[in-house]
């Protein structure tokens, strides 16, 4: 992997007012990779993703996407450039139907025919969404909402997909299903994935590399397999 990273953070600081959530995060994501960010609650994992997406403003440092600095790009422009996030808690539009949620994923696109095909493809990938297409998003179960959130993000035609806690609050069998889909999206569609998870075991099994975040800083960076066998990691995050 000698090519240039598709997404790179260089010493990124950000926060909410006087609260500094990120204190110099640096990381690289290569095209085609699945990279996991693991860490405890409140370590700054979600803030990292929200900062990449421009929702939380960068105070210091640089975020590069495809070699270009995107610190100042308005958040609503990023999905049109191929950078998309499935946020924590999925954030389905509760009073819009499943179909409308998917349609909005393609908000910036004008290719109506292809959009309709892509929606059909979503229903093939997630048959339950096809069955519930006229239902309001808020009436779906957690697992169904997570599927809808991923399908909606895929409608933006992402090159890089940021996933925040896809396993949160889901039954183990559903979690496995979601992670299979994540691998499938990466392998078959060639989408690069940056994954944030508290479930470190799952995340590192799916990922090729991982970063460990503690109180707004990267404390460890390694191949996923190496992190999985690292005794400190096993103790702190894998419950051993």
């Amino acid at each position: 992997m000698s090519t240039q990273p598709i997404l790179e953070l260089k010493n990124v600081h950000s926060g909410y007012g006087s609260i500094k959530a990120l204190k110099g995060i640096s990381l690289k994501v290569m095209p085609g990779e699945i990279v996991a960010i693991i860490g405890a609650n409140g370590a700054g994992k979600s803030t990292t993703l929200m900062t990449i997406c421009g929702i939380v403003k960068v105070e210091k440092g640089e975020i590069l996407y495809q070699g270009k600095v995107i610190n100042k790009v308005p958040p609503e422009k990023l999905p049109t450039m191929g950078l998309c996030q499935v946020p924590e808690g999925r954030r389905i539009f509760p009073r819009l139907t499943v179909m409308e949620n998917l349609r909005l994923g393609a908000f910036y696109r004008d290719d109506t025919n292809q959009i309709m095909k892509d929606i059909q493809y979503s229903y093939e990938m997630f048959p339950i969404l096809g069955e519930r297409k006229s239902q309001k998003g808020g009436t779906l179960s957690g697992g169904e909402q997570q599927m809808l959130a991923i399908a909606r993000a895929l409608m933006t035609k992402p090159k890089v997909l940021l996933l925040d806690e896809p396993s949160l609050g889901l039954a183990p069998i559903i979690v496995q299903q979601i992670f299979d889909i994540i691998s499938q999206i990466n392998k078959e569609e060639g989408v690069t994935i940056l994954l944030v998870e508290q479930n470190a075991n799952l995340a590192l099994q799916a990922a090729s590399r991982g970063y460990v975040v503690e109180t707004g800083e990267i404390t460890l960076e390694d191949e996923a397999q190496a992190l999985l066998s690292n005794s400190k990691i096993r103790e702190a995050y894998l419950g051993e």
Partner: protein
Amino acid sequence: MEYFIQQLINGITLGGMYALIALGYTMVYGVIQLINFAHGEFFAAGGYVGAIALGYFSGLGYMETHPIICLTASFAMSMAYCAYLAVGVEKIAYKPLRKESRLAALLSALGMSIFLSNGLMLTQGVYDAVYPSELFQGRFDFGMVTISYLQIMIVSLTACLLVGLNLLVFKTKVGMAMRATAQDKTMSALVAIGSNRIISLTFAIGAGLACAAGIMYGLYYGSVRYDMGFVPGIKAFAAAVLGGIGNITGAMLGGLIIGMVEIFGAGYISSEYKDVFAFIILIAVLYFKPTGIMGENIDDTRV
């Protein structure tokens, strides 16, 4: 009985105008949780621009020969003017305060209302501006009940605008984006919906509808005044609260109810107190069902 039907027709006419104004309150509230107290001024501004446009066509003598074209052109130009005015007001008075407390924007709205109303007074004078009277002179008589052509025009145009708005909000992509922005602005940004554009659009549509109501008011009552935005504005606000603030169908329903109550109250109780009835309803709603008729529980038709 005839008297009742007559009042019913008058009530629908007035109620439709209130509904058009109430939509602006409810849509803006739905999207940015602000009670735009300057909204009544778009109604007044619309009444004036309409008077100017129609007066101009009338002076040229086109009104006799091409009444429909003159009317359509006047409505279109005035609504466009008010839409731009509202977008400007939002950029100047509300956008800089979006991250501040809601109270700040609310006070800014009150200030904007006074500013716009006084601006209208300074530029247009304190006296009534008269509407040309040659439009829609005829009427139908059914025994004791009369329906003027003007009433038919007002009610049908109102119905068209209400249907059009419903189609826009519930059937188009941009309407979908409006509803999404109302529900979750951060998530909307993550699917490439720029909330600033949607907010501007919401203000533009609301002001356009209020403007149409202002012209109808001018045509119906024959004249407009610089301060005419205040009372109908507050009544339309009462209508929006009655329907459930943030809910489009609720605002339409609330407007009709307030119009009816006002006309029937004036007809059967006392016309001296006609302005009071809307506020009695407002107080009753706030007391017994603060969420309004369609509020919260039935939230499918929120913006």
